[in-house]
């Protein structure tokens, strides 16, 4: 079996099992936890609307911090939206998803995806530099932060190398790209990357709790 067959077959297969089992474990484990008890009379009911409101408002920075966080916030948006487009709107990726989902959706031209990919890599590097140079961020960063960064950027870089090639053979660099995705899938549920599933759950929960307590959201 050559490297590409290994990557597309057994490697991806095992990664998929672990990714699915791990992600569901994390999500179910959190969702089934007991709700916080109210120590005082709830001000409001704290329903779905409260959750949705905070999911929306927390997408923007509160005004006192706007200026201070403008730079990292912009970088984070470029990184996240770039990643989203590269993963879900690149036609070969859509074909990959269609392979097991059974349906597809329209994608973007490859040229645009390449641009967004480069932007996402550049933003990721700038964010890493910031993490390494800001004393506060440095202090609160651990292995999880750096490794999560690494396994996210690796598939981006190897993916961008496929059209450029740089002396590598297409099937070899494609195999390395898939294996880098395998690494990402293996780490995803267990590290901080899990926020991709949980970010809106946690924001919504915060919104509901805050509303019950009568806090301004």
């Amino acid at each position, binding site marked *: 079996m050559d490297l590409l067959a290994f990557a597309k077959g057994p490697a991806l297969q095992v990664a998929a*099992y672990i990714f699915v089992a791990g992600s569901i474990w994390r999500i179910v484990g959190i969702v089934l*936890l007991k709700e916080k008890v109210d120590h005082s009379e709830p001000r409001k009911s704290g329903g779905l609307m409260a959750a949705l409101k905070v999911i929306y408002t927390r997408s923007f920075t509160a005004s006192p911090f706007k200026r201070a966080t403008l730079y990292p916030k912009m970088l984070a948006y470029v990184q996240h939206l770039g990643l989203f487009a590269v993963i879900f709107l690149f036609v070969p990726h859509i*074909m990959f998803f269609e392979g097991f989902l059974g349906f597809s959706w329209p994608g973007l031209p490859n040229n645009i995806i390449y641009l967004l990919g480069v932007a996402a890599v550049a933003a990721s590097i700038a964010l890493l530099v910031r993490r390494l140079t800001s004393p506060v961020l440095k202090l609160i960063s651990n292995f999880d932060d750096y490794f999560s960064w690494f396994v996210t950027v690796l598939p981006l870089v190897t993916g961008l190398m496929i059209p450029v090639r740089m002396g590598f053979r297409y099937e070899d660099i494609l195999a390395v790209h898939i294996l880098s995705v395998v690494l990402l899938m293996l780490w995803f549920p267990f590290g901080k990357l899990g926020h991709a599933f949980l970010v809106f759950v946690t924001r919504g929960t915060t919104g509901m709790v805050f509303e019950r307590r009568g806090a301004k959201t």
Partner: protein
Amino acid sequence: MKKRPTVGEILQAKGVSRRGFLKYCATTASILALPPSMIPRIAEAIENTRRPSVIWLSFQECTGCTESLTRSASPTVEGLIFDAISLDYHHTLQAAAGDQAEAARHAAMEENEGGYLVLVDGSIPLGNPGFSTIAGMSNVEMLKETVAGAAAVVAIGSCAAFGGIPGADPNPTGAVSVMDLVTDKPVINVPGCPPIPMVMTAVLTHFLTFGTIPDLDKHGRPMTFFGTTIHDRCYRRPFYEQGKFAETFDDEGAKAGWCLYKLGCKGPTTYNACATTKWNSGTSFPIEAGHPCLGCSEPNFWDGGGFYEPLSTGRFDSGTKLAGAAAAGVALGVAAAAAGRSKQAKFTKEG
């Protein structure tokens, strides 16, 4: 040893014009990526070389490779050159049969000891020698015996080069490729199902001209023909980059000649000269005719997933195992939550 005619004499006798011959030499130089200054050298070498002795062995094959070379609509110079160099022993093309044919093979081997070329099409079954025999001899025996005194071996077609259809899963005959068996002689792989005729003769011409084997890639294929992918040379490539794909074989995209990636094109991982050298005397190639590349010049292309399955499709087995993984996740999650809840309860009590 009787004096063999030169290839030039044979071509002349077959009525190939000087102009046609030089045109062939120029094309060969260009596809071998040689400078135009090499054209006279090629012409001289071909014209003056005594007909080299070539023994062609056919094992588990469909004769498609021979057909590819000999059934062009009008006889081409490459076809004639091939004729001129290849007739010592070839099951399909030789007039002799039975003992006579075997005697011809032995005679050619003895007379040209150390200097003849062996061309092989078809894979060799190791499972049971009875799966394929010639003159009572198993394929592996005949290959070993014939190759012993050869200068080099050329594996023609994907079966000889990599095992091909006979070697595809579950490989009932235990088929192997030439390079699996021949390790002490240079082996040149010219894969394809079938290979492009021009590529076959250009490899032979290279051998005639320089007396050496060309640069080979990691699969033993000449770099000049198998150095770039179909995708890198495909005229539909701009559509690929623009994201314009044919979705079915008869939609507007297919009619407009858009990229065939979604219809299963294996061009990106296939190294061959189809997109540049083309087929049928340079007329077109499969992608130009509207069909995705199957990847026929790659090892194990039969087992590389469905022909119409996009290249980026993962090769998962059943979804049931994935469902099993999901169920395991739920179980783990419930257990984790139960543990969490009891901790929560303890915490609230203590608090």
